[in-house]
């Protein structure tokens, strides 16, 4: 029993690392396949002109025609692991630095949205599932249907129109006020600029979690143990707490961590609409401007988050679920 958890953790870490490695290979291959060669599209442009000799050599090493692809990948990977992610062609800065700044902005948004949508989605899903077929269930289901049919970017546009342009409650874009020195930006400024994007992300995230939680809750309500609990006179809050809540919590953990990917994807769209300078916007800019080093780094960072999330979910599940923690019947 004592070794079960460490083994579980070890297995998950190895798997996550393998997956990240595979993502980097696939991404590299996709970038190589692109007809938009970063060297050619950027030749003669200011980007190349302003780069140091050494930086251009590096770029040729990764993307040039002289070295075979496998070697290119290996030399890129070697540098990446060491923390040298190359130089961004658009921002003319080391990619690591660009990512650091953008990630800080994005995390702000994403963590907020992740927590709010997870919590709200769980509560709504549980309420709907416990009251299956009643008006409150129909209301929640309807809300989820509409929200999951609404593209995140259009919801962002809508909120921008109403609260930004119409009511002028919130700024129209950027993460900080325009024309203010970096040092003069207060925490409140940041929050003020992040409210609308964070709100949009939270609203879109709710529907998926709520719908899945509802399904699980319905399964649990139809289970034999719930039936027996009712036959033993359990009702109301006790019935929910001891039988419903305990059992829906486990799948909810997995769901919540799986939502990281969705939040990440949503942030790409939302940041674009609000011109919020986060990771998502950097990804779009990198894609449109053929900034391969930056695009690769964004992809890998996002994959790290997704797999890391899955890993944490798996481990948490193992720690919380006695069937895995104490072993045996899980098979």
């Amino acid at each position, binding site marked *: 029993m004592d070794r079960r958890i460490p083994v579980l953790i070890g297995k998950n870490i190895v798997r996550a690392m*393998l*997956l*990240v490695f*595979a*993502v980097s290979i*696939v*991404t590299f291959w*996709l*970038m190589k*396949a*692109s*007809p*938009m060669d970063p060297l050619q599209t950027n030749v003669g442009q200011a980007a190349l002109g302003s780069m140091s000799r050494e930086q251009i050599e590096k770029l040729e090493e990764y993307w040039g025609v002289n070295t075979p692809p496998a070697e290119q990948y290996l030399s890129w990977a070697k540098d990446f692991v060491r923390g040298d992610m190359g130089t961004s062609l658009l921002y003319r800065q080391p990619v690591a630095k660009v990512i650091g700044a953008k990630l800080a902005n994005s995390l702000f948004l994403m963590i907020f949205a992740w927590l709010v949508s997870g919590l709200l989605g769980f509560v709504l899903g549980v309420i709907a599932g416990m009251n*299956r*077929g009643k008006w409150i269930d129909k209301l929640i289901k309807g809300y989820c*249907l*509409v929200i*999951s*049919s*609404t*593209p*995140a*970017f*259009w919801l962002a*546009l*809508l909120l*921008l*129109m109403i609260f930004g*342009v*119409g009511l002028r409650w919130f700024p*129209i874009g950027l993460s900080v006020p325009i024309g203010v020195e970096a040092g003069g930006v207060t925490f409140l400024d940041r929050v003020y600029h992040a409210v609308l994007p964070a709100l949009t992300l939270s609203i879109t995230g709710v529907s998926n979690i709520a719908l899945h939680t509802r399904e699980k809750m319905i399964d649990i309500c139809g289970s034999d143990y719930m039936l027996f609990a009712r036959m033993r006179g359990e009702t109301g809050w006790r019935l929910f707490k001891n039988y419903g809540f305990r059992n829906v919590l486990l799948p909810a953990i997995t769901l919540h961590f799986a939502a990281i*990917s*969705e939040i*990440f*994807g*949503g942030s*790409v*769209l939302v940041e*674009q*609409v609000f011109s919020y300078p986060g990771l998502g916007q950097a*990804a*779009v800019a990198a*894609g*449109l401007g*053929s900034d391969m080093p930056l*695009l690769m780094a*964004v*992809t890998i960072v*996002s*994959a790290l988050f*997704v*797999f890391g999330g*899955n890993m944490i979910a798996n481990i948490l599940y193992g720690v919380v679920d006695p069937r895995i923690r104490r072993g045996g019947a899980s098979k």
Partner: protein
Amino acid sequence: MRLNRRQRVLIGLGVSLLFLAAVCAAGILSGEAAMATDFSRKNTAPCVKYLFGTDWLGRDMLARTLKGLSLSILIGLLAAAVSAVLALVLGIVSATMGKAVDAAVTFCIDLVMGVPHILLLLLISVALGKGLRGVIVGVALTHWPSLARLIRAEVIQLKESPYIQIAEKLGKSKWYIARKHLLPHLLPQFVVGLVLLFPHAILHESSITFLGFGLSTEQPAIGIVLSEAMKYLVTGEWWLALFPGLLLVIVVILFYVAGESLQKLMNPGSVHE
């Protein structure tokens, strides 16, 4: 007349399919109206003549919306169909061809799900040179994992069911078992899964074109119509973004309704919902 639940579901399915077909037909038949510019009528707010208003070039937004939606629906249908077939094949292969193949397919599923969907679309689009082709291939190559996972689980469950094990012991051929026992169970799942892929595909198609990847401005996909509208938000032309987006949402909702109706009709267990 009192209708029972099933009849109501069937009517819902019919109405949504009819509406979707109408949008498609209108978009295809409208021809050049979506591109026709007329500066004498530019920036008209919605009125009886131009229900959705006109834009800064005087183009009729209703015609553009319909054209864009029909294009998006067609791309969505095509790409989702490819993705669904991919999911079917991979799901069955994964469940029946032994442990190594199963591990490989499962790894691929995790891999595709590991990169946020939009980002993956963006990568494929860049790899294929940002054209219409990139969008279609991207949407087709990224929507299969969840359905493949579902089909894999279903086939594994079927394989272990007593009646298939008995059929195997009785010496029935693989082909016979597949045709008589697997297919009848998988087909409804597959059809429902396919239809429920459409809304996802359309949402992602519109998102990726909105970001500026894929279709050119000569092909007014709904994402492009909306991304153009975004530039005019601040100047007060609210109708440019509102109505096309609203219609897009309605189309996606109807696809969901159609998929769920089908599910209710095909799966007797869910009828009572």
